């Protein structure tokens, strides 16, 4: 990141979309959450959703929010579309979905990461798109940065290893 680049942290349950800026969108310390990064290289529109849980309920009580994977994915694409992105041009990358906590006999309750990954696949399929690259699952934390000038996505693991997704 250069000195002139603005750093925008996308918090838990939030999404950020920017157009034509020299900025970096980042999620620091992803555990079971999913960070969905999307970039339109023609319109130079990029967005990140930091999604916490797979779904926000069903029926009348369904909650629509970037907090949930099932509604966060379409919300991100809608907001990017408003800023000039075209869905068919999006380069989509995702990371996160780790199972950080493991307790014998209780892992059915703690497998939020695994359920987030499964819901992400469903949500992307519903949108008729697929991810160009993913780094999901496992048991360790990650941080991710989307560079809006190029669309480059960098993932850093808790061991300090940084790689391009």
């Amino acid at each position, binding site marked *: 990141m250069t000195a002139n680049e603005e750093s925008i942290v996308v918090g838990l349950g939030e999404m950020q979309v920017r157009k034509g800026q020299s900025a970096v969108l980042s999620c*620091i*310390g992803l555990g079971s959450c999913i960070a969905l990064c999307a970039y339109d290289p023609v319109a130079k529109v990029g967005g990140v959703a930091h999604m916490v849980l797979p779904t926000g309920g069903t029926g009348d009580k369904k909650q629509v929010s970037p907090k949930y994977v099932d509604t966060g994915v379409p919300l991100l694409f809608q907001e990017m579309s408003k800023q000039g992105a075209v869905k068919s041009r999006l380069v989509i990358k995702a990371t996160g979905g780790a199972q950080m906590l493991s307790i014998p006999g209780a892992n059915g309750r703690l497998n939020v990461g695994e359920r987030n990954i499964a819901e992400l696949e469903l949500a992307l399929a519903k949108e008729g798109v697929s991810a160009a690259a993913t780094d999901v699952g496992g048991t360790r934390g990650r941080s991710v940065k989307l560079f809006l000038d190029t669309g480059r996505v960098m993932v850093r693991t808790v061991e300090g290893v940084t790689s391009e997704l």
Partner: protein
Amino acid sequence: MTYNKASSLFDLSRWSRLAQIGSINAITGLSEMVDQEIKVTALSLEEVSMRNASALIGEPDDMMVGIYLLFSGSASGQIMLAFQPQTAFELVDMAMGTPPGTTRELGEMEQSVLAEAGNVVGSFFLNAVADHASLRLLPSPPAVVMDMVGSLISAVMAEALQESETVFVIRLSFSLPGRQIEGRFLVLPTLDSHTDASENEENQTT
């Protein structure tokens, strides 16, 4: 502090009292385990939003050691005992009676010692709350994890946020005089637990 409809279901002052009783007992247990005087430096009950979750412990990319357990029974929720890695290493040295600086990584033995600390703190906390509020509270075996603050807190919050936009957190800071030991003790009761525990505690005291 503002309350949403769900959170108004329980009486904050009663839960504060339960938190205080349980937390002080938990630190007594830790103190006995390491055979050192441990002082409670701050105790609070806070409503925490998703956005501010990481700030409970530190910067999101700081490393931390988390000792995590679930509890169930009359009420349910999560307990996390959190330390900076150096602090966790020093705690292991104290528990094992080895000179400060001996422990430099978390191997199987060190994880086992910290899990035992989690057992002691969790059980002492839950027993005190259970006795005072006439509840039956059962701890799970603990998990010991070293990772980024943000990763661990978001995983804990994800479990709690399945039921609410915010979580209530009992936050306890403690330290040892003359030693570089400082920790955080977080308890995240599930929303339904607030009402049951408050009601039971009210019946007990009226």
